[in-house]
């Protein structure tokens, strides 16, 4: 069976008379400049309220899931990763790649402008997106400016503390072991 491919053609519908921009799924979006979004996101991160960013990630994740009626779980990782990367790119949130570090799944997000110093905005976006795709809560903890380790939300804070004390991605993965879910 051929794997579905993401088709960006006609993803956005421009209604000039109505002044609307909608996605293929019908959701209305607003096109914002990077210089406008950046300060807004930084302020939200400063206030430790990234709910809006996470919700945007959930919206993007739903676009990915719509291409797989059987769900993402039984699928091979490659088409899921390809769809997720295409959806993030269409929304202008950088270039996504997935890789395995032992048992840890790591998301790498490149070509994203720096929105906040701690990279929480990207972490919230990715967490929201993969939570919808995987159909379970997922936390993406920043290991550095571009790498985010997918872990259970219950240990996200502890893993985040390792990263803040200078642990590299390899050290973080090394400290994690397979345990009871």
């Amino acid at each position, binding site marked *: 069976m051929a794997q579905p491919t993401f088709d960006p053609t006609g993803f956005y519908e421009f209604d000039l008379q109505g002044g609307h921009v909608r996605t293929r799924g019908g959701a209305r979006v607003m096109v914002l400049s990077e210089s406008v979004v950046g300060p807004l996101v930084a302020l939200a991160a400063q206030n430790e309220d990234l709910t809006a960013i996470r919700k945007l990630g959930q919206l993007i994740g739903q676009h990915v899931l719509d291409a797989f009626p059987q*769900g*993402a*779980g*039984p*699928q*091979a*990782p490659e088409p*899921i990763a390809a769809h997720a990367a295409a959806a993030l790119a269409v929304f202008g949130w950088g270039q996504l*790649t997935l*890789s*395995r*570090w*032992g*048992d*840890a*799944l790591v998301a790498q997000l490149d070509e994203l402008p720096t929105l906040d110093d701690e990279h929480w905005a990207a972490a919230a976006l990715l967490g929201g997106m*993969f939570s919808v*795709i*995987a159909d*379970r809560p*997922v936390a993406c903890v920043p290991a550095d400016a571009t790498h985010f*380790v*997918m*872990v*259970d939300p219950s*240990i996200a804070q*502890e*893993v985040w503390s390792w990263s803040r004390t200078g642990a590299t991605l*390899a050290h973080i*993965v*090394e*400290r*994690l*072991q*397979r*345990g*009871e*879910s």
Partner: protein
Amino acid sequence: MSAVEKLEALLERVQRNRAAPRTAAKAAPTTPKRAPSPLELAVEKELSSPPAAAPSPRRSSRPASPPRQTPQPRAARHAPLSEAPKTTPSIPVSLAEPPGPVPLEVPPRQSSGRNVAQIVTQAEPAVPLTFGALMDRTLALRPAPGGD
């Protein structure tokens, strides 16, 4: 030089070879060995029978010269050329073209998209996993006890 003179010279040479001691033969390293000619062989055969010709004055005054060949048993001296002393047999060299290098059949490398750290940290053999299985594994990770 007439034929008679040649024959006399040969007779003289053969008589010298028969009379010369073996040590004198070993002291002549520069004289190359050569197989006796048919004429010499005929003279030798003639000498083995009772002598018929009187010796010439030249034979008695001529000093002994190094023999041309080492005295050998008659059987070996008259050995046909086909039975020449054999040298150490060489290893037969196959004239067939030696087999060329066999190209190694290197299985095509499948890029897994993982770096060295990923590969060395993976304890299990690579098995295709679904996206759901990958999520199960990463979400099951917990901080190792005692590690910091």
